[in-house]
């Protein structure tokens, strides 16, 4: 089966064994208990990443990346299975900050920019590796298994209509439902 799914990963990162996964999930639980939500990101970095992710999947029409806790997923990924990507985040984020200063002199932070300027800023970095990395993490954080700290309250799954269950029965969709036979 052809797939583009793992291409980015195999080129840029791709590092984990099951011990890492257990660590990631344990980390998520410990963080929730301790009230110290971030292990790798500092609060400023977390705020900036949250601001970027929140424009990628905004909350204007309903819950988005922010409510799904994407930044918590990213922190956990960087603390566990994607720890080799920490430097990519640090340098990538520094690049975005440089772009922000260039585009919006005098601005204090990404999070402090008005929404239209945040959008302009992301447009300006769309072709960077960091954008691809952040987009990949944002979407895994939105739509991946909630045990990694993202997809809170199944916000991502509810958005697309996905339901994680162990048993389904036919009919599965509209077109295999005999009740709709011939109607289409």
């Amino acid at each position, binding site marked *: 089966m052809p797939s583009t799914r793992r291409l980015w990963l195999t080129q840029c990162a791709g590092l984990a064994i099951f011990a890492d996964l257990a660590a990631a999930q344990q980390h998520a639980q410990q963080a929730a208990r301790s009230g110290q939500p971030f292990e790798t990101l500092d609060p400023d970095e977390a705020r900036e990443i949250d601001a970027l992710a929140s424009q990628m999947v905004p909350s204007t029409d309903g819950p988005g990346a922010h409510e799904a806790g994407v930044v918590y997923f990213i922190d956990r990924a960087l603390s566990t299975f994607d720890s080799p990507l920490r430097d990519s985040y640090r340098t990538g984020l520094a690049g975005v900050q440089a772009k922000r200063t260039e585009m919006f002199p005098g601005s204090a932070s990404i999070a402090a920019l008005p929404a239209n300027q945040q959008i302009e800023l992301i447009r300006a970095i769309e072709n960077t590796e960091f954008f691809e990395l952040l987009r990949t993490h944002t979407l895994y954080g939105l739509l991946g298994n909630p045990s990694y700290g993202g997809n809170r309250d199944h916000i991502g799954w509810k958005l697309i209509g996905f339901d994680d269950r*162990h048993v389904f029965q036919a009919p599965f*969709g509209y077109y295999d439902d005999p009740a709709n036979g011939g109607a289409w």
Partner: protein
Amino acid sequence: MSGASFRPSDPVDFLVIGAGAAGGVMAKELSTAGFRVVVLEQGPYWTEKDYRHDEIQYTYLPGLTNDPKIQPITHRRNDSEQAKPVKAVEYGRQVGGGSVHFTANYWRFHESDFHERSQFGAVAGADLADWPIQYGDLEPYYTKAEYELGISGLAGANPFEGPRSKPYPLPPMPVKSSGALFERAAKKLGLHPFPAPMAILSQPYQGRAACAHCGFCESFGCEMGAKSSTLVSVIPMAERTGRCEIRPDSYVRKIETDAHGRATGAVYFDARRREVFQRAKAVVLCANGAETARLLLLSRSKRFPAGLANSSGLVGKNLMWDMGGEAMGLFEHPLNEYKSIQVTRVLHDYYRADPKRGFYGGGGIDARFDYYPAGFALHAMPPDAPKWGLEYKKMLSESFNHTLTLLGHTSSLPQPRSSISLDPDFKDAWGLAAMRVTYDFHPDDVATMKWILSKQFEILEAAGAKKTWTTGIALESMLPSRHLMGTCRMGNDPATSVVDRNSRAHDVPNLVIADGSNFVTSGRQQPTATIQALAYRAADLAMQAARRGELG
């Protein structure tokens, strides 16, 4: 896990390398016939309780497959390029191998697949050849595989299939919306869609429960044992004999030979990376179409300086690829494709190669669920969707459950320039030469993918898609290849093949090689049924040879 326990210094009757689709079959056949068997598997011994519904673990991370962090792979398109690290091939790395995480499509080859060279003629840049066996030689073994493993399907529904001696043991799985749309459209076009033959239980079978339609098949291990992997079917049968020991976490570095050029066993690293030499009267290599070739090349010695079983120079050559494009269509009503198995309908109308088309090749098409949530959001959205923002979010929410994917499964030509070799620069975590993949499409492979893709779009339009798109057919988007075929091809002439018609190495009389590497041609992808039929046949013939005293 249970079964026998053998001392490495005690020569067992058969040492099987690889506990996957082929190795699992070998273990069961040989041990139930009374032979003493050790199976070395480089991956761990997981079972149903270890598997989860977790897209991150099984698609973002290596999950059930080879991990390039410990086993780097390099790829180059041709000899003049410098090979770069990338996960170019992927295989199941655990007891059960790829049969654990595969989609479970279970197509037999057609009669024509075994003599395409005679039918079609030569193809420039490729070494298209006839198989030394015919469909009829494999038919009893296809049937045996279907019954021992548990395959669901409808006999006679595919008008292009070769004759079969028995119907499927289980009825087809219930149709999904993708299958219903596909079937109606294909029939409208005068085509012949049929229920997909799947290695998934539609009803309880041999003590295993029927599929509950949870939807996590492709890339995942089945949590209820309804996918008919060797892990849940034949491997337990092998262990119950008390004559078969499955040794997980055992990574083979060399097959050893004696002064007469006969295999004497294999040296492997155990879980603690200690070297162990397991002695055996005969060796059966089932490590998949990529690792089998690599291990033979790693097993070079004074007597076999080019690698074991490689007097032809063809070990590793003629690597064939996992091929075919995706056509996606958006529909008015929800399909809810995430429910139940990946594929319920297939067609083989465009399967045969026809010289009149001007290029070699053909393909099958299936209707399927091909992307889990994050994968869909990242890679499968319509091209007019922005990559992020409010409009992206809106289109994502409207398309995930409304998208139908038609996947092409097309021929891949055997090209001498396509190969598995040893990388001169990169090493794995055990210090062995890394696998180097040299591969690029043959122009006819590209022409076939495009032609089949045009048929996929015709079907989507006949089905009433509101919008259609493709994820493309660039080689970069087809890494890694998961169908690994052709690197120890079967043939009657030791100068032009690695194994004989019985899957025994021409050069080493007590070495059997039985997996995707035996393939002379690629069929139309979906190689598992043929890998397993070949394994059943090779086991049968190896046991006959052993009883004649040829192997011991």
